[in-house]
């Protein structure tokens, strides 16, 4: 009896040992990401499909909320628990590469995907020092000017046909004034202040307004902000925007982000991201007009860049991490979800499969901006400081603060950060 019991225990232990050694044999790839419930589910399903196709690999998804993503990543770095694959906001790429967190991705990703990337996609994943590719994505992004056709017709506004035909600053401000007096219009424009200052929105969407007006957040040759961000064109442009707010032309932050298509259509124009189209068009049908961003100065400018994927230097299995990324970027269901979410194409094959953005499509003008007016946010390791300082300045300005003082304070904060980091070598040698 005792012998049988011992034998059965031995067999059970051996079986457990086999199971455990089998489990240990699996390669675990940690993938850190953000996203809303739809994306979280989609990533989970992609991971399951990859695991089914690669039974020796476990994909462990690490979700971090969008507003605490950087804190989560910092904690992972400090506790030496960096993931293998990470989603990152494109303008933060230079900072991550400079800090040594990301590795060149070209040797790890399928060549057909690399060949499929749009120029803007390559630009958002490229580190300016070695010009190497460190991240890749299925998507990119842009901001356009949405208009309510009925209101625009009521004031006799000219509807631009393409990017070259964009409204000038004078036209734009003239229309805002006319719209402010039009019955039914509560606010001439929604600039999506509702996104607040905890997201990238202000730098992402308002930065190009400055660039169009002839200035920038920072001089991209000397990497100095004083003299650029607080220069006359920038002060003038943000004073103009402050005046819109003072005039009551802009949807206030407290009114949320859907006043353009909410009941009664209280906002006549919307300075909104490409992702806004699906929701707005579903509600407004043919009443929605998609226009290029106005020219606020000598040239047109529009934003680009979105959340893209990189492989960290901490990965012990970069080849498998790359294999997972290639799998995901080609995954049909993943692409279908992105398409239904009106995602802006970053791969040519995805663009060809997205009638929304192809020539003649309702968002064609948004895709046209990518090749004609898109300007990436400053690809510099000081970007986290640049964006935070600029967002605080804009918030202060919109709340009635002194424009010049707010921009000077932001510019000084940026320059101080760069000085404190000895110019972020070798960025200081670029001058």
């Amino acid at each position, binding site marked *: 009896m005792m012998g049988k019991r011992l034998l059965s225990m031995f067999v059970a232990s051996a079986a457990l040992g086999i199971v455990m050694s089998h489990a240990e044999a699996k390669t675990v790839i*940690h993938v850190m990401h953000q996203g809303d419930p739809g994306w979280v589910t989609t990533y989970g399903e992609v991971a399951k499909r990859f695991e089914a196709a690669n039974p020796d690999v476990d994909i462990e998804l690490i979700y971090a909320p*969008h507003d605490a993503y950087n804190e989560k990543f910092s904690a992972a770095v400090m506790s030496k628990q960096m993931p293998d694959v990470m989603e990152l906001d494109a303008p933060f790429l230079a900072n991550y590469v400079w800090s040594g967190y990301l590795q060149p991705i070209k040797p790890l990703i399928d060549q057909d995907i690399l060949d499929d990337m749009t120029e803007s996609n390559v630009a958002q994943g490229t580190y300016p020092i070695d010009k190497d590719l460190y991240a890749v994505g299925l998507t990119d992004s842009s901001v356009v000017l949405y208009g309510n056709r009925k209101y625009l017709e009521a004031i006799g506004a000219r509807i631009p046909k393409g990017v070259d035909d964009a409204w000038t600053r004078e036209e734009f401000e003239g229309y805002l004034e006319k719209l402010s007096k039009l019955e039914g219009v509560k606010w001439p424009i929604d600039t999506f202040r509702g996104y607040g200052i905890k997201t990238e929105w202000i730098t992402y969407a308002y930065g190009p307004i400055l660039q169009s007006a002839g200035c920038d957040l920072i001089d991209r040759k000397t990497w100095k902000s004083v003299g650029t961000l607080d220069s006359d064109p920038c002060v003038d442009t943000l004073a103009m925007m402050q005046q819109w707010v003072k005039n009551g032309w802009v949807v206030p932050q407290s009114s949320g982000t859907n006043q353009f298509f909410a009941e009664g259509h209280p906002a006549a124009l919307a300075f909104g991201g490409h992702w806004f189209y699906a929701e707005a068009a579903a509600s407004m049908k043919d009443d929605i007009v998609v226009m290029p961003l106005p020219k606020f100065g000598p040239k047109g400018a529009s934003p680009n860049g979105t959340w893209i994927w990189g492989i960290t230097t901490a990965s012990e299995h970069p080849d498998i991490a790359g294999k997972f990324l290639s799998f995901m970027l080609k995954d049909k269901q993943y692409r279908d979800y992105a398409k239904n979410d009106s995602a802006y194409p970053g791969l040519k094959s995805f663009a060809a499969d997205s009638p929304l953005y192809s020539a003649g499509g309702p968002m064609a003008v948004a895709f046209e901006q990518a090749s004609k007016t898109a300007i990436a946010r400053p690809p510099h390791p000081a970007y986290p400081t640049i964006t935070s300082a600029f967002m605080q300045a804009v918030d202060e300005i919109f709340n009635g603060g002194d424009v010049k003082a707010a921009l000077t304070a932001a510019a000084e904060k940026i320059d101080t950060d760069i000085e404190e980091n000895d110019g972020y070598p070798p960025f200081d040698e670029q001058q």
Partner: protein
Amino acid sequence: MSDLAISTLQTQVKPERSAVGSLRIVQTASILVIALVIVSPLFMLFVASLKDDRFQILADMGSFRAFWVSNPTLSNFAEVGNLSGELAFGRYLLNSLIILASTVGAGLIVNSMAGFVLAWGSLRGRALILSLVIALYVIPQESIIMPLVIMVSRAGMTDTFAVQIVPWIASPLYIFLFYQFFAQLPKELFEAAQMDGASVFRIYRSIFLPLSLPALATVSILMGIETWNQYLWPILVTQTDYARPIAVAIATFFGQDSIYWDRAMAASVLMMIPILALYLAFQRWFVSSFVGSAVKG
């Protein structure tokens, strides 16, 4: 008393009565306004959780429609009540309850014992220890959070329930609160029990602890709220659904481009229920503790 005197007295009393009446009306109105300010957001949250159109919720927020739902639905609750899948909110809620019960349960024992020892124990340097405990209270959690992350990570505690419970069991604030309560109890109680041969632990467990219901209730509620609302810490120390609390899960609805108000509201209502129940359960002692503190100064 002459008729004239009575009539004069009545005329003196009448204005006083009417002044008291006016004061009561003002008091009642003020209480009603304060109650309305406190209750209306909660009511709005509950109403919004019964609406299935997230854009409508947002559009209604600026008007009285925020307090009315014409076609109530429980679909949002159904969506956030799942116990498995990619976003298992039922699971997250369960995780939160486990963390809450364990932290508060262990916190009551550890902090009350520490408070008792500091008040009545024979430990040397109690005054110094008490000063250090009070000094620790002024250090904000955020300032030590990163070193703490490194510590728990090196200890191999990440992504566990323990990592969300153990660091927050002992708290300078609650130790001090218990100390203050125990120190106010009559010295004779302690001495009488000692003369009867009771050990220090026996005195704590059988005499002082049963007398400290108001302190226990206060600490339960304060600690419960603190634990329940933890957000940054669980984000930093958890990786998967295994031990993640609902506060982190709700943040999923606040995406980069869109906010899913419908499900966020339903999840918030679900999240509110346990902590509200905790408060209601301990409310009587909680209030008496505060009143007692105020009277005793």
